[in-house]
């Protein structure tokens, strides 16, 4: 029996520079998915480096191992009907694409933000240290970041609030068929209900 796409697991993969909003938006997305009845696991880069990838550094080799590990766990979760939300800088396109290929049901979300804003924000104080040379191999400063060419979603965290970015991600997940559109108490989607409301209003019933 073929499984309905809405019952399948999948991976939402957030990529982008440090401080670009991956963690914030991925948490919001995870919360919304849980509210909609999905089983969700979040694999956040900072968290993973404290356990699954403990001991790995920031050389290209170590970074690739880290991203492959997260990708592999996402793959295991996704194929068992869980929604895996990965949020890691994942600077190299080739490794992200490897994960996409491995997982299949893969939605890439690019958290975009100009460097000057990131430096200005610098919530963790890391850019300051990196620019001062106190941290080496810092992505965007002295280590490369390869932006995705065709991500499913791009959000600009300097231009929109995280709630709007999360809404975009959920809308894309719906559009791709992994999530039933949200229904109103009438059983319509929001857009559909607006249509019917407008019709009933025109007829004087609302």
């Amino acid at each position: 029996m073929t499984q309905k796409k809405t019952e399948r697991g999948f991976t939402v993969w957030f990529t982008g520079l440090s401080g670009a909003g991956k963690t914030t938006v991925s948490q919001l997305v995870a919360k919304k998915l849980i509210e909609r009845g999905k089983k969700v696991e979040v694999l956040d880069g900072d968290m993973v480096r404290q356990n699954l990838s403990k001991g790995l550094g920031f050389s290209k080799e170590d970074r690739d191992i880290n991203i492959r590990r997260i990708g592999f766990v996402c793959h295991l979760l996704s194929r068992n009907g869980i929604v895996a939300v990965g949020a890691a800088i994942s600077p190299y396109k080739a490794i992200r694409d490897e994960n996409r290929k491995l997982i299949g049901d893969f939605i890439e979300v690019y958290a975009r933000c100009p460097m000057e804003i990131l430096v200005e924000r610098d919530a963790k104080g890391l850019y300051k240290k990196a620019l001062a040379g106190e941290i080496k191999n810092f992505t965007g400063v002295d280590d490369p970041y390869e932006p995705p060419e065709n991500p499913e979603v791009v959000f600009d965290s300097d231009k929109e609030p995280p709630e709007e970015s999360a809404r975009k991600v959920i809308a894309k997940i719906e559009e791709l068929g992994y999530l039933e559109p949200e229904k109103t108490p009438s059983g319509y989607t929001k857009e559909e209900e607006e249509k019917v409301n407008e019709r009933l209003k025109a007829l004087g019933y609302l």
Partner: protein
Amino acid sequence: MKFFFKSGKAKIKRRLVVIGIDGTPHSFLQKHVDAGDFPHLQRILQGGELHRMNSVQPCISSVAWSTYMTGKNPAGHRIFGFVDRKPNPFQIFLPNSSHMGAKTLWEMISEDGRRVAVINVPVTYPPRPVNGILIGGFLSTDVLKCAYPQEIGAELKNWDYRIDADANLGRTDKEAFFEDLNVTLERRLDAARRLFEREPWDFFQLHVMETDRINHFLWEHYENQDSAYYLRFLDFYRKVDELLGEFYDRALNQAEFIILSDHGFCSVKKEVYLNQWLEDRGYLQLEGDEPHSVGDMGAETKAYSLIPGRIFLNLAGREQKGSVEPGIQAETLKAEIAEALLSLTDPDDGSRIIERVFKREDLYRGPYLEEAADLIAIPYDGYDLKANVRKPGITFKGDLVGMHTYNDAALFIKDRRIISQDFGILDLAPTILKIMELEPDAVLDGRPLV
């Protein structure tokens, strides 16, 4: 007569064609048949009488057609209006077929192994499965999703089928509205003809919604023969007359034939805003600077209204912000509101506005009675009961010029004598089942008319 008999086998059960003409008054049809304006209906009526029929309370299409298709009163089918509410947590919603709590005629006919083709009847969206096809009515949102089986949607799209005319045009641009009504009706007819020819139906129903739409926006113009739109209005109905003739002829020698409407129409004298009335009298308390609906009511609220004329007590233990204690307090409040409503008058000429106020248990019975409004106010013809909040006054003359009436629906059943004098749309399902030689598997509220 291959449709009726097969040699050596049992008689094949009867087939039936039903044409629904939404909101077309009996009095209107009879008057123009008598005047010779509707030649097709005139010849059809040689095979029987056009009967005046009662609707249901409240007499709006969603409730009336749900009553028609289930043979149950509203407390038996659970559709009480175009809008309804869940009391706790308080939510307003638009009831559709997924909320309907009773089996439909076409589902009963399907269960007998016979095939149906049902087009555009209100409250059939989302389409529930049948043995045959069903195209949802005007609560549908997308042609591709309006039909069962779903593949029919793509065909409808190819045929440029339209779900409903654009009622906004009725307010803003009468010329464009006429055009839109005509095109919508044409497209519906086109789909109906194709399906009539192609589908192996035993029960075929085509619902014409455009009659209700034209009446809502132009009935007053029709009642004024000097209006620029009087003749256009009649011309539109001549088209409807033609389609009645066409399907009558199509049904000849192969199926029984019924025409019905669900309610009558009259001109609107005034729109009456019952929530404004309730607020003025201190029964309804709204919160916030710009309350949009009764969803914004506060805990001081004693009662609120949903369209048309349905009044709910803000009952403790039932409603989210319930403030009225069940028992004596609730009963006293109901009596008080009913009495005040009955004395409500039109400020312009002193006419009474409300003819009767029913308690729900006086009007309905069935498993969903508890979901009905506590009181149902029935207006005199011409007073259109609304439920919008924060209106500048209680009565208002707006741009909707037609409203529904209870006792002027129409019914024609070919070659059948209707024995009853006083009957309603509730009696149609048992009548149709009898004509189709089917035993209803549940006890219906109506009774067969033939």
